[in-house]
């Protein structure tokens, strides 16, 4: 069972009949989602915010790794760069939009400059080269004390909820992060739902074949790398809004590897998979900590292996199979 390409789950005629019903469902889901922050505890809201933040970083990584098939170990560097850029901007009294612009511009430039030479490499060589990004970024952040606060990190007040909203900090941050995450997901979906998506799929399957069929391999790979980096940068900006603090820890290779792991656990080439992977990455350590603090790491590793073992398509793949199964059972 290695079919990972999505097939339409519902025949066209059926979906036409079900369309009004489907819109009702969408509205209901939206209302529930919007209501959650009002009833959840601040701690839960923070967890949800973090899931969305990492979801954005993972959905970007998916463009490069899942779609284009280029395994990257450098995503944490872009998340960190975005977060530091945002911290600088907020620290100097810029507004959120200006901070986002700075983060995106900085990350975009770095991503393109790194991508142009790096994507010429294939397979594991590319992975190891991207590993240089966190390896380089962590000592750099530690040294540029004036900009980054060194190993202490920087704490800033990113945004405060406007008076008229009457929201607490955690609720306001969750709404803000949620809206931005939704926009990023929508943009990524639209970007891949066409020429670029097909070009990347061709590159993933066979680069030589893609080139022979007129796909501009190098340009599309640079584009995928840049999109991945930009999503990482936006995730960094969101991270700063969520946590109001950044330290070199966010740049570390550990996070880059964790994001890759989360991507595969959630399921590649799937927006839902990115969210599920992020949820796994944020929530499962909490659960394992509760079971037994001393064995937390071991249990987390075992959970990972179990998911990989039984759901090679990731959690999203498992969910899709479950849906298809129930649909068959109830005879539509």
């Amino acid at each position: 069972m290695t079919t990972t390409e999505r097939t339409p789950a519902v025949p066209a005629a059926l979906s036409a009949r079900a369309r009004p019903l489907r819109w009702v469902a969408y509205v209901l889901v939206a209302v529930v989602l919007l209501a959650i922050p009002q009833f959840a505890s601040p701690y839960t809201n923070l967890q949800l915010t973090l899931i969305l933040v990492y979801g954005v970083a993972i959905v970007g990584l998916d463009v490069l790794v899942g779609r284009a098939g280029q395994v990257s170990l450098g995503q944490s560097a872009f998340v960190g760069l975005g977060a530091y850029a945002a911290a600088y901007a907020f620290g100097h009294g810029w507004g959120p939009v200006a901070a986002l612009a700075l983060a995106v511009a900085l990350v975009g430039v770095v991503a393109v400059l790194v991508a142009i030479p790096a994507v010429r490499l294939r397979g594991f060589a590319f992975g190891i080269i991207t590993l240089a990004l966190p390896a380089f970024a962590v000592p750099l952040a530690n040294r540029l004390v004036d900009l980054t606060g060194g190993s202490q990190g920087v704490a800033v007040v990113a945004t405060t909820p406007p008076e008229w909203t009457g929201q607490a900090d955690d609720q306001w941050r969750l709404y803000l992060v949620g809206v931005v995450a939704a926009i990023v997901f929508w943009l990524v979906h639209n970007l891949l739902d066409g020429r670029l998506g097909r070009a990347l799929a061709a590159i993933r399957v066979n680069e030589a074949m893609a080139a022979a069929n007129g796909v501009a391999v190098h340009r599309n790979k640079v584009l995928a790398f840049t999109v991945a980096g930009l999503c990482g940068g936006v995730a960094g900006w969101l991270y700063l809004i969520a946590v109001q603090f950044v330290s070199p820890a966010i740049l570390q290779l550990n996070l880059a590897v964790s994001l890759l792991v989360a991507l595969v656990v959630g399921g590649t080439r799937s927006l839902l998979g990115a969210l599920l992977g992020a949820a796994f990455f944020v929530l499962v350590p909490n659960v394992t900590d509760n079971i037994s603090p001393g064995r937390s790491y071991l249990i987390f590793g075992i959970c990972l292996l179990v998911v990989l073992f039984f759901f090679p398509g990731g959690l999203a793949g498992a969910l899709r199979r479950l849906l298809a199964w129930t649909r068959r059972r109830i005879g539509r």
Partner: protein
Amino acid sequence: MQQIVDGITAGSIYGALALALVLVYRSTGLVNFAQGQMAVVSVYIGWSLVEIGLPVPLVVVFTLLASLVIGALTERLLIRRFEGQEPLVAIVATVAVLICFNGLINLVWGGSVRAFPSLFPDEVVSFLGARATWGDVGTVAVLVGTVGLLQLFFLRTRLGLALRTAADNPSSARLLGLPVGSLLLVGWGLAALLGGLAGCLVAPSVPLQPNMMDTILVYALAAAVLGGLDSPLGAVVAAWLIGIVETVAGANINIIGSDLRIAVPLVLLALILLVRPQGLFGRRDVERL
């Protein structure tokens, strides 16, 4: 000169682990991120044996045997499931194995720092104006010996030939009647043994702790890729090169210092790969469509 000697010593340890990575890549086409952690497990087993009071040479033999078993079991019980699937899933599975072993070490031995006895006498030898301990000399000698044995093994024995066949084209190998599954098992076992060797060599000079191989793994990955991933000799030469460049650059270029040292081999790797994408000793992949 002193720096070059230090570099070769450091490089030899990276090289031993890089050899393990190359062996796994050659037998299963995977990069095993758990390679270092598996070595740490066997070194901890070795430490326990030392505590019981076994003599050091015997401990080394048992440690290597333990590595062999750990590697073979990991392949058979876990990695086998992911062979033939998307390599990405298999790589993430090796990361999961890494996390599990790390957790296991913390559970069994605790996270505190231990000391591992040296395998060689402590005296210092000097030649050509450079000084090195017997440990350093021994490390280099062991590595050179291992590469020689590996080359002989792969090129001159039936098992070596079978391993190469199974790695090169599993389905053809199966049609020829080779037990591909067992061969993969042997490949992983041998790789783990090499990793264990790297662990034994490095353990006396760094404090024994669950994360001790993490940095070394990065260097070993760089060396394996620089050497071309499928060439044992290339991996070792690349590891020495990395060791030397890192030590010399770290000591002589002030701006690098101790914290940016790890970036040196990676930048070197990037520069060399841009000129030779297949690595120093690798063969260019030719694909038939």
